[in-house]
C-alpha cells in the first residue's frame, strides 16, 4: 500500500510537471505576445515591460524561473489586470468554486445513492422506469441548457410569487448556492444513479445477502446493512472523474449564474488571452484534479480491502 501510494504520488508530480511544461511552451508557441496586443508602444517602453515580466531572457531561462516559481506556489502577475497576482486571484475566487463544487458533489452523491437504491428496489416497476428515464434525460441535455432552463424557471417562479423566492444569479448567501449546486451536480447524479442501480442489482445475488435472507433478517435491515453499504463502494471509484467533471462543469454554471468563482475567471482569461492567468489557473486546476483523483483512489483502497492487493 505504501509503495503504491508513493508510486501514485510520484506519477502525480510528474503529471503536474508535464502540465506545467506543456502549458508554458504551448503559451509561448502562440503567435504574438501579450505586450503587443492593444496599445502601440515605443521600443524603449517595450523593452522595459519585457524586462519587468522577464520576457527578455532566453526561453529556457524563463522556463527555469517559471518552474522555480510555481514549485514555490507563485504563479506570476496578470497581464490584463495590472499588478494583480495570479495567486491573489486564485485565493479570492477558488474558495467560491470549491464551496459550489463540494455542495454539488454532496448533492450528486446523496441523490445518486438514493435514486439508484430506489430504482434497484423497484426494479422494472414504474418508479424504476420514471427515474431511469429522467436519468437518461439528465445525461443527454447539455449542462448549460439545464442551467439556462432552471434560470428561466426561477425567473417565472419569482414573477409568479411576486417576490424573490430564490435568487436568479449572483453569490453571497446560502440561497444563491442551492440551484447552481443542483444544476452542477445533476449529470453526476444521473451517472451515479445508473452506477448505484447496477451495483445494487449485482449485490442482490451475492452469497452474503442470501445468507442474511436465510437467517431471517428483516428486509429493511438487509437493505440498509448489507446491500446499501456494499453497493456504495463502486460509487467511490467514480468520485475522482466526477470531481473533474464538476470542476469543468463549474465553468458553465458560474458563467450562467454570474457566480464569481475561479472557473468564470478562467474562461474570461481565455477570452482575453491573459496568458499568465491561463497558465497559472491551468496548472493550479491540473494539479488539483490530478491529486484529487489520486486521493480518491487511495481512499478507495482504504475502504475496500480487496483493491489493496492489486497494483
Amino acid at each position, binding site marked *: 500500500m505504501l509503495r503504491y501510494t508513493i508510486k501514485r504520488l510520484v506519477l502525480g508530480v510528474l503529471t503536474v510537471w508535464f502540465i506545467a511544461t506543456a502549458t508554458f511552451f504551448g503559451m509561448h508557441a502562440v503567435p504574438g505576445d501579450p505586450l503587443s496586443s492593444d496599445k502601440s508602444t515605443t521600443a524603449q517602453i517595450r523593452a522595459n515591460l519585457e524586462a519587468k515580466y522577464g520576457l527578455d531572457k532566453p526561453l529556457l531561462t524563463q522556463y527555469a524561473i517559471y518552474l522555480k516559481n510555481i514549485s514555490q506556489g507563485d504563479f506570476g502577475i496578470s497581464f490584463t489586470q495590472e499588478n494583480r497576482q495570479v495567486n491573489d486571484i486564485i485565493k479570492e475566487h477558488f474558495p467560491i468554486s470549491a464551496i459550489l463544487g463540494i455542495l454539488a458533489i454532496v448533492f450528486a452523491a446523496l441523490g445518486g445513492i438514493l435514486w439508484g437504491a430506489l430504482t434497484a428496489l423497484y426494479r422494472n416497476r414504474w418508479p424504476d422506469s420514471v427515474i431511469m428515464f429522467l436519468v437518461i434525460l439528465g445525461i443527454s*441535455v447539455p449542462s448549460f441548457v439545464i442551467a439556462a432552463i432552471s434560470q428561466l424557471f426561477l425567473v417565472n417562479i419569482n414573477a409568479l410569487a411576486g417576490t424573490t423566492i430564490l435568487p436568479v444569479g449572483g453569490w453571497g448567501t446560502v440561497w444563491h448556492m442551492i440551484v447552481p449546486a443542483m444544476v452542477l451536480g445533476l449529470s453526476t447524479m444521473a451517472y451515479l444513479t445508473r452506477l448505484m442501480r447496477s451495483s445494487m442489482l449485482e449485490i442482490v445475488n451475492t452469497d452474503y445477502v442470501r445468507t442474511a435472507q436465510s437467517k431471517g433478517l428483516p428486509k429493511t435491515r438487509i437493505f440498509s446493512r448489507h446491500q446499501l453499504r456494499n453497493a456504495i463502494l463502486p460509487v467511490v471509484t467514480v468520485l475522482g472523474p466526477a470531481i473533474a467533471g464538476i470542476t*469543468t462543469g463549474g465553468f458553465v454554471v458560474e458563467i450562467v449564474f454570474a457566480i464569481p468563482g475561479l472557473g468564470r475567471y478562467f474562461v474570461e482569461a481565455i477570452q482575453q488571452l491573459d496568458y499568465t492567468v*491561463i497558465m497559472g489557473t491551468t496548472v493550479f486546476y491540473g494539479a488539483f484534479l490530478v491529486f484529487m483523483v489520486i486521493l480518491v483512489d487511495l481512499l478507495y483502497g482504504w475502504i475496500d480491502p480487496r483493491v489493496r492487493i492489486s497494483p
Partner: protein
Amino acid sequence: MSDTSWQPSPGDFAIAPQHQTADVITRPSMSYWQDAWRRLKENKRALFSLYLIIGLVMFTVAGPYLWNIDPSAQDLDQIGMAPGAERNVTVAPAYTPWYGPEDSLTYAQDNRLGLTLVGVATSQAVRLAWQAPQKGQTNYGYKIYRTLFALNDGDAFGLPLMETQNEYFEDRLDLQPTDYYYTVVALDRHGLETDQTSTIQLTVMRVITLLEAEKRGLTEDGLVKEGDQIKLALHPFGTDYLGRDMLARLIYGGQVSLFIGIFAPLLYVLLGVIYGSIAGFMGGAVDQLMMRFADFAVALPFLLFMILLKVIFGIGPGESGVLPMLVAMVILLWPAPARLVRGQILQIREEGYVSASKLLGAKTDYLVFRHMIPNTMGVILVTITFQVPSAIFTEAFLSFIGMGVAPPTPSWGSMCNDGIKSMLTRPHELFFPALFISITVLAFNLLGDGLRDALDARMRNRE
C-alpha cells in the same frame, strides 16, 4: 475383482454402426455479427435510436439540397422571428421624410400631454405628436421612451430614444411587428424629468416597399401593387437574432457537430486500437513503456488541455476552427481506448480457443484477423458509440465558453450559446439547437446500451 457379473463378449469390441440421425443442426448457423444484429433488432429502443441517427445524418447531409438557403444570409425583415410567426406584410409606398404634424391634427384627450399617433404605425416609422403640458407655456423639451412590456406604476419606461425640443417624434429604430409602449416625459427648465408623462400603446404593422419586395423576389410577375398583402420568405424554424434562417443553420450546424461527434471518436479510438494492440502484442518492456506513457496521458485533465490546445492552435481569419478541435481531441483522448484494447488483447491471448488455434498451427496473422480483431471489435464499436455523446458535449462546451468554431460557421453548440442570450424573449433560438443536441446524444446513448447488450455477452445487464 474376480467376482464381477459382467463378462465381455467379442461383440462389444466391434466397430459401432454410424448413427444416421445424430447432431442435425436444426437452426441455421449464425455468425457472431448476425447474432448481434438479431439481438439489436429485438431491442426496440436501440433500433429506433439507430434509425434516428441515420435520420439526423440524412438531415444534415441531404438538408442543403432540400432547403437551399445560405445559413449566414440575413433576412432583415424577420429578425428573431419565432417559427410560425405571421408572415403577412403590406406593400406600402416608399418612405418620405416627416416634418411634424399638420395643423389639422386632433390630439388625444385621454392622456395628459395629448399624445397621439399620427397616421399608421408601420415597421417603416412610428410618428407621434403631443402638446405642451400647459398651452402657451415655454417648453423645456421632452424625453421619449419605448418598451415592449406593459407599464405598471413605478416601472421604468424602457429604452430612452431621444430628447427633443419638438412636440413630435418619429421612431424608425428597428421596429418589429409587435406591441410597443411609448412614453413621453416633459422636462423642466433644468432638463430633469417631471411627472408630466403620457404613455400610449400601439401595434406596429409590418410593411415593405414595392422596390424591396421586388428585390427579395416576393412579387409574382409584378402583379403586386401598393396596399396589397404579400407573404415574406418562409422560415420554418424561425430566424435568429441576426435574421438568419434557423433551419439552414441547424442543418449546417449539424454537419459541424455530427462531424466532430462521429469522426473524432472514430479517429482517436482507431489510434488507441493501433497503439493498444501493438503494446498488447509486443508485451514485455515495450508494453510496459507504452502503457506507462498512456497512463500518464490519461491522467491529464482533458477539458483544460482541450482549452489550452485551442488557445495554442488559434483560429486564423476565415477558418472555421473545426479541424483544430478534431486534432486536439485526437491528441488528448486516444489513451483510454488504447488501454481498453490492450487489456482485451492480453485477455484474448490467454483464451482457450487461441491456444487451440495455436496448437493447430495457426500463424500470427490468422490469430490477429480471425481471433483478436473480431473479438475486440464489439468492445471497440461500443466504445466509439459511447464516445460520440462526449465529443458532441465537448464541442458544445467549447462553443459555450467561446473556444469553439468561429462565427459565422454555425454549430449546435454555438447556436445554443447565441440562444441563451435571448432566452427570455426568443426561446426558440435556444430550444431547437438544444433539442437537436439532446436527441443526438440520447440516441447514441441508447444505441450504445443496445450495442453493448448485443455484442458483449459478458457485459450484458451491467451498466
